[in-house]
């Protein structure tokens, strides 16, 4: 299989890339990791007229924390960079838990976090993680830069809020108040398959053990990534007691909109969402095991 014909540009700067997009007509696509785009082009689900490959643009391959704790992930940072990142391991439990679960090790060497957000697949792991963290995407275009919260950035399945001449250059995670806790758990039939379901929980916990802020994002149990705001709000101001955990897990399960398919029944998926939420919260509670991170594989 090979893609339909397209024009290919490999600009050497962001300004050049934006100019190419601006002048390039309607159907242009940015190529970063290409691990979703190239398969879609080969299957002719996508037939862009112009590919703007940003892999030669310098200064997009980074992830770093500002002095205030704000985390910035550049558009060319690969999943594998995040999987092996000491910074994430030390300061971002939810992201550190999710990075090793993205696709498979070969895809992780090419694919990017920012590209995954742009692709806006309801089955994508990073959108749930970044929604739980209250993260934003920074878009750069001819009119300058703007930050778009991930919750607003994804406008539908495979649709995002970028203008045709804008490039997503960075993902930004705001600093935490208190200590970060949380994790990401995902059920998949085998490595690289779409998630049967996934639950991302991001917590900020005070010295007294109370939840200052919570965010919960769900993968693969709805037409888009789900932001379980009621479940998150129920945790706010509370200690992670067994009762609080059970109530939040129940609200998380209610927020899911799973459909029965070959990966499992709707009831089963909802049950797994409840179980995963309780497991991550339990691990974060006093006496818990710390950040929850394993992929469960169904037979």
């Amino acid at each position, binding site marked *: *299989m*090979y*893609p*339909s*014909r*397209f*024009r*290919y540009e*490999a600009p050497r700067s962001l300004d050049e890339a934006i100019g190419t997009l601006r002048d390039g007509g309607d159907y242009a696509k940015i*190529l970063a990791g*290409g*691990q979703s785009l*190239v*398969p879609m*082009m*080969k*299957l002719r689900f996508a037939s862009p007229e112009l*590919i703007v*490959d940003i*892999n030669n643009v310098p200064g997009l391959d980074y992830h770093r924390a500002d002095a205030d704790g704000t985390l910035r992930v550049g558009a060319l940072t690969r999943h*594998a960079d995040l999987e092996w990142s000491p910074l994430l391991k030390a300061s971002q439990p939810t992201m550190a838990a999710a990075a*090793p679960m993205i*696709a*498979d*090790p*070969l*895809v992780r*060497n*090419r694919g990017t976090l920012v590209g995954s957000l742009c692709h806006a697949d309801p089955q994508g792991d990073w959108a749930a993680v970044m929604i739980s963290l209250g993260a934003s995407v920074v878009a750069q275009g001819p009119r300058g830069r703007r930050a778009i919260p991930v919750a607003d950035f994804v406008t539908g399945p495979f649709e995002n809020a970028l203008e045709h001449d804008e490039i997503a250059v960075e993902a930004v995670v705001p600093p935490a108040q208190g200590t970060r806790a949380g994790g990401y758990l995902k059920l998949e039939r085998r*490595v*690289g398959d779409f998630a049967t379901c996934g639950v991302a929980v991001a917590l900020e916990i005070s010295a007294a053990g109370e939840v200052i802020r919570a965010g919960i994002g769900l993968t693969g149990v709805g037409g888009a990534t789900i932001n379980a705001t009621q479940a998150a709000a129920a945790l706010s101001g509370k200690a992670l007691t067994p009762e609080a955990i059970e109530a939040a897990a129940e609200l998380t399960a209610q927020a899911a909109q799973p459909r029965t398919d070959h990966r499992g029944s709707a009831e089963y998926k909802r049950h797994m969402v409840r179980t995963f939420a309780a497991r991550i919260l339990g691990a974060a509670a006093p006496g818990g095991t710390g950040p929850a991170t394993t992929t469960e594989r169904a037979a």
Partner: protein
Amino acid sequence: MTAVYDDLGDEATSDIPVRRIRFTINGAKKIAEIEPRLLLSHLIRRGVGLTGTHMGCDTTNCGACTVLVDGKPVKSCTMLAVQVDGREVTTVEGLASASELHPLQEGFREEHGLQCGFCTPGMMMAAKGLLDRNPNPTEEDVRWALSGNLCRCTGYQNIVKSVLWAAEKQRARTPGAE
């Protein structure tokens, strides 16, 4: 190189974009004239004529087409050939020297790490990516690193043993690698 595509009759030949790229494959410097839509796997197999890189699923699932690009294992069916402009590609043919097999190749022989052999080049290249990063992997590390490569024959047991064998052999050769 010459690549042949289906003519859908809808374009003048002068409109067909062609790019000239330079790249290194297994240490040899090459120049190719290609359409941007050519996949890296096709550049390697049809253009350079190295058929050790196998095309399995062609849908980013199986890992049979794994090669190293700038030292990192990637699926060559999921990368445009034009993207290796200025970069270095290593295929399974680049593992052995003129006189000696690579420890990974020896390991697959010693531990019976293959049956039909179709997935083997991809397995070896993914394993090379692991050993370059981690010369002393555990069994779990090996299984993790190969989790994107499918084998329909072996049940993986002997593939894992082969990689562990190769790791040990490499460590014995380069003291202080641990």
